[in-house]
């Protein structure tokens, strides 16, 4: 069966077509072409998902990329249960975002370019999850970085957007450097065992031969890469700025692609990560801290998309927390449910922004429930899902993470408390946002209010589908006392090396569910009490020092700017303005100057006058004559 190659092929073809002939197709046709490309990919992904047996691994070599003595790197695709799930998320959510973009970007000049980038994004992401070896995975890894740069800075005429694109790219490069080092070290270590390959399956066979202390370093470096791509402390700073791009792009980056790459990579190499409890512990702590830290920042933001951006960072923290306690399948499950409700949230916020003609400040919204009924409903559903309302998707996945943190031997009470508090914060900041946007007095500016309108059907349909997903996606994996989990059985073979899977006492699980629900409800209640911006306590709180600190995002950007960016630019300026003209140019020019001075004498001989030359010729001839005659 040779189906796998078509999944990346269609978006690539779509992107190339749009790049080269898109301008003659016209905007509408270009958009439809892009949608069709991703749609076909989705159909193929779905076929593979349904054909794939749980324990099976499809492998499809295309051609040999390079062959140097014992080293042979193939362009080869593989698909197991994990890949199939990722492909469904990428192409499925990606397709909905494509369709939504038809409406959202319908009036934009650069729509053809936009859809070319979007298709390219899907291409690289599917390449990443389909890759059979780490090198090909790295190609996809870099590719999504490139596409995120292109899309974040899509409206490049605005300098801030271009800066945000640069920031995303540079921060990602730092992570990629770690990933690259880890990959090379792994390659070296495998070469020590005589296996000159970077294929994941071959790696899996020889893990027991690797030296543990080396594996610790390798996984640490690989995690730096994952932290860069999946926005974990300390490399999370690019993600909140990534919302400078068009809103569907934010949805694509935050939900279906890009940020999931880091989680996917750690899951794909779970057998390696499971070997080192130290790295896993670090990942768990980074994940937990990121979840909590980002959630606190989200509390005090006033930009509708910025809240969502920090919420993504926070939710990704949850995923890494699950990875850190060895619950890989749970992490992927949260990735899966998060893709639905986060895409839904972003696209709904896009619908709000679209309706208000570009307004993103929540203080200038409010009372939009009347004007945007569909968006209101989908937003509500997704907000409930992310806050962990019972029976929604987020409820099941978040609960499993908390349960895994508690029950896994790698987990601890402090980690659990961190995750538990984050659950409360999540409910608080999401409902704070929800009330600010949709309830209360309408604070929309007059001109925007005049043409406020619900989005066209092409945007509403994806919203509704995603909202449905936000509810039902979680039902694939329910606790034991309900109808059990399809999910675990499906992904079990992939993570057989280091699964957590101890569903001990289900009474405990119910208890924990209750405790989590309680703090989420508390968060909701607080948000409800402070729902009006005119509330006295809320107003007093918002002026407090801690709130200013939160609103300033702990001034991490400023810290980075002071400690890294400024010294770097200063040294670059010193090199460019002092060192380069003085030292480098001085050396080169000095050498040239000396040579020129030395040859000043010699070149006097060349007057250019023929008669001088003739005279020299004559003198020479006479001298020779004299010499021969006198001998």
């Amino acid at each position: 069966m040779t189906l796998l190659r078509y999944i990346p092929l269609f978006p690539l073809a779509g992107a190339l077509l749009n790049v080269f002939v898109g301008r003659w197709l016209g905007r509408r046709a270009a958009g439809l072409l892009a949608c069709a490309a991703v749609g076909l990919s989705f159909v193929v992904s779905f076929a593979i998902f349904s054909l794939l047996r749980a324990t099976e691994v499809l492998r499809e070599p295309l051609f040999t990329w390079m062959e140097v003595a014992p080293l042979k790197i193939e362009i080869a695709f593989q698909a197991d249960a994990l890949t199939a799930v990722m492909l469904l998320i990428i192409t499925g959510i990606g397709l909905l975002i494509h369709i939504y973009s038809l409406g959202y970007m319908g009036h934009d000049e650069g729509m053809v370019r936009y859809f070319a980038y979007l298709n390219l994004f899907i291409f690289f992401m599917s390449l990443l999850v389909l890759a059979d070896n780490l090198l090909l995975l790295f190609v996809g890894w870099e590719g999504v970085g490139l596409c995120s740069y292109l899309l974040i800075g899509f409206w490049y005429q605005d300098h801030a957007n271009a800066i945000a694109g640069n920031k995303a790219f540079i921060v990602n490069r730092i992570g990629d450097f770690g990933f690259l080092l880890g990959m090379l070290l792994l390659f070296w270590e495998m070469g020590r065992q005589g296996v000159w390959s970077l294929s994941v399956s071959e790696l899996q066979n020889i893990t027991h031969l690797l030296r543990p202390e080396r594996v610790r370093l390798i996984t640490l470096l690989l995690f730096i890469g994952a932290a860069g791509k999946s926005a974990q402390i300390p490399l999370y700073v690019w993600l909140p700025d990534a919302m400078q791009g068009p809103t569907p792009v934010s949805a694509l980056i935050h939900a279906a692609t890009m940020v999931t790459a880091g989680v996917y990579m750690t899951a794909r190499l779970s057998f390696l990560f499971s070997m080192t409890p130290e790295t896993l512990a670090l990942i768990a702590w980074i994940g937990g801290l990121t979840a909590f830290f980002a959630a606190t920042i989200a509390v005090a933001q006033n930009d509708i998309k910025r809240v969502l951006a920090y919420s993504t960072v926070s939710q990704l923290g949850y995923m890494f927390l699950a990875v850190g306690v060895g619950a890989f399948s749970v992490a992927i499950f949260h990735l899966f449910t998060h893709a639905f409700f986060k895409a839904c949230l972003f696209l709904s916020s896009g619908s709000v922004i679209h309706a208000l003609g570009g307004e993103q400040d929540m203080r200038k919204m409010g009372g939009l429930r009347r004007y945007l009924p569909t968006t209101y409903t989908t937003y509500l559903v997704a907000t409930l899902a992310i806050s962990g309302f019972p029976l929604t998707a987020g409820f099941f996945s978040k609960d499993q993470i908390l349960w895994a943190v508690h029950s896994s031997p790698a987990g601890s009470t402090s980690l659990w408390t961190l995750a538990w508090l984050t659950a409360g914060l999540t409910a608080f900041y999401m409902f704070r946002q929800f009330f600010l946007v949709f309830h209360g007095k309408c604070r929309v500016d007059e001109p925007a209010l005049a043409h406020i309108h619900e989005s066209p059907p092409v945007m509403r349909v994806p919203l509704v589908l995603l909202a449905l997903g936000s509810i039902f996606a979680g039902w694939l994996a329910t606790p034991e006392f309900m109808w059990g989990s399809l999910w675990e059985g499906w992904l079990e073979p992939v993570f057989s090396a280091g699964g957590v899977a101890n569903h001990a006492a289900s009474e405990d699980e119910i208890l924990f569910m209750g405790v989590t629900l309680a703090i989420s409800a508390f968060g909701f209640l607080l948000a409800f009490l402070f729902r009006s911006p005119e509330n006295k306590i809320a107003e007093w709180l918002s002026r407090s020092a801690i709130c200013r600190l939160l609103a300033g995002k702990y001034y991490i950007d400023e810290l980075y700017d002071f400690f890294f960016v400024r010294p770097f630019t200063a040294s670059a300026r010193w090199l460019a303005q002092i060192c380069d003209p003085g030292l480098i140019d001085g050396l080169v020019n000095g050498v040239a100057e000396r040579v020129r001075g030395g040859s000043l004498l010699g070149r006097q001989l060349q007057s250019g006058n023929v008669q001088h030359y003739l005279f020299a010729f004559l003198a020479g001839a006479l001298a020779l004559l004299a010499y021969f005659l006198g001998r």
Partner: protein
Amino acid sequence: MAPLNYYLVLSAVIFAIGVAGVIVRRNVIVILMSVELMLNAVNLTFLAFARSFGSMDGQVIVFFVMTVAAAEAVVGLAIIIALFRHRRSLDPREMQLLKW
């Protein structure tokens, strides 16, 4: 018949005049004429030796030299005309751009 040495001294004098002309004159046409003078001085030497040794070789070479000299004069004059059209001058001191 005059002794051979007379002819040789005469041709040496003519050759020296030609060399001096080539080196010191400031007109390209005169320089070309001086070159002709040098060629003819050599021709005279050839002829003198041919006569005194009773051999035909020298005579034959002189014919060759004359032919070449004619061709050289044609090409030389053509170059001079082209030069003059460009520069409105025949002073060799002004034709020194091909240095360095």
